[in-house]
């Protein structure tokens, strides 16, 4: 949990960047210590120092375990092959691992955020087979045949999705914690039967809460992209 709190204000990270690779993390630790790499290592150390009750968490600091099946199956774990952002990951998971925790802790895709963890805030929104869902409310092992898309799969800093660019242009965030969920919802809205008005967009986006209250700018960003497309 400490890790979740630490990343609360990590605006940069929530704007759809790939988590730093281990090599990059090492480089920045040796040279300039960036906030993200520092927190990332602190988070891993924090977890390592405790007895992780859920195997999903225990796998976090073992990069080699991320994409390869464990040679020895831990008791109670279930094999699962997950397709995330076009890549297949073979994992063994405690079945209690939510899709959200799996993305963040096992696959190091920390752009997807944990807010309420009860399907009420929308911070964890990802696409499953092109539809937006709350990743906190399903278990990862329930998705063997699904195409999962996270904010990392929508766009990257050097080739932003138009919605990401519009959020930056319209300042559609303040702390940024809800932003990846907002963008995932907004991208889904482009394909949903949503009316043309701002009110229609507000209705379509009410599953994503923004405590900073950036709503007017979020609506402006969404509308701009809808008008473009």
């Amino acid at each position, binding site marked *: 949990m400490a890790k979740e709190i630490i990343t609360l204000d990590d605006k940069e990270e929530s704007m759809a960047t790939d988590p730093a690779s281990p090599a990059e993390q090492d480089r920045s630790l040796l040279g300039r210590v960036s906030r993200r790499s520092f927190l990332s290592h602190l988070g891993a150390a924090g977890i390592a120092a405790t007895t992780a009750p859920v195997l999903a968490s225990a796998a976090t600091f073992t990069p080699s375990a991320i994409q390869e099946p464990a040679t020895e199956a831990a008791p109670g774990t279930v094999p699962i092959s997950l397709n995330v952002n076009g890549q297949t990951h073979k994992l063994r998971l405690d079945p209690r691992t*939510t899709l959200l925790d799996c993305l963040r802790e096992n696959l190091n895709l920390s752009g997807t955020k944990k807010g309420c963890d009860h399907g009420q805030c929308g911070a964890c929104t990802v696409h*499953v087979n092109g539809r937006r869902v709350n990743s906190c409310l*399903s278990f990862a092992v*329930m998705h063997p045949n699904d195409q999962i898309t996270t904010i990392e799969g929508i766009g990257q800093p050097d080739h932003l999705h138009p919605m990401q660019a519009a959020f930056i242009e319209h300042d559609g965030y303040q702390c940024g914690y809800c932003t990846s969920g907002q963008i995932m919802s907004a991208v*889904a809205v482009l394909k949903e039967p949503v009316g043309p008005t701002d009110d229609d967009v507000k*209705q379509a986006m009410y*599953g994503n809460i923004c405590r900073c209250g950036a709503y007017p700018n979020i609506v402006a960003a969404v509308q701009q992209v809808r008008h473009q497309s």
Partner: protein
Amino acid sequence: MQTFQFTRATTPDQAIQAHAGATARYVAGGTNLVDMMKLDVEQPTSLIDINELSLSAITPTPTGGLHIGALSRNSEVAHHPIVLRDYPVLSQAILSGASPQLRNMASTAGNLLQRTRCVYFRDTAFPCNKREPGSGCSAIDGFNRNLAILGTSKDCIASNPSDQNVALTALEATIHIQGKSGSREVPIHSFYVVPGNTPHIETVLQPGDLITGVTLPPPRPSVRSLYLKLRDREAYEFALASAAVQLGTQGNRITFARVALGGVGTKPWRSLEAEHALEGRPVDLATFRHAAQEALRSARPQSENAFKVDLSQRCLVRALTLATKSA
């Protein structure tokens, strides 16, 4: 969260076979069950994933009705062209609940079994007869503003939270169930049971029973249907009071009426009293008000929710008024 054994089923038979009894659960969307597992309100020892079952289709029936597969997602049902055309009350009800993300996950059958939002049911620190039979009801002398005024007992006043099921009740849907000893069909008004002294029993389902789908009867010509939901805010909130109505008129006379209320009952509340007070009567405000009074005649409000008696009546009057407005 308690540990559980995870099984993936690919056919109804396989799922039912894998169901080991009272502590096993089927999981489809997970929106309600996973939430409750995180709260330790649900502690299944075995979870059977039924998402791979072929129960997602929405198909017209030979008699002109509509069959909705158990695994159809709420968003699929709400936006289905036949639902929009013939059963708008169902689309309106579904779209008035939850969020777009949740509606993309939640299944038709899962929604049928949605559990109450009573805060004491969801908090294991408090006694609750529904969660732990015999432990007592914390809500009767506690926070009960959102809870039921119809169908309550001295052991439970929890309200049924679903919008979908209020519409399905007004539409007289039939629930298709496959169990360890064969298949059966249950009309929705016989599917839910009032709490009495066994509030942990909410439906006629037996352990291992699997809902395979819901059938809607053919739409009646020149009957209009409508869902109206009143709540503390206009989005993402459960009903304080809601009404699903089907109304047919000929000239100035009501020829057909089906009425179900949400937010006020311990189950999706079919009001035969309101229907009797409507059919054969003139289309006017006096008729609607009388029907609404009849619908709430047996209401037993609690310390914080007496307002629901009036609110529910106004909701029904308004729904009936809207349903009879010239298009």
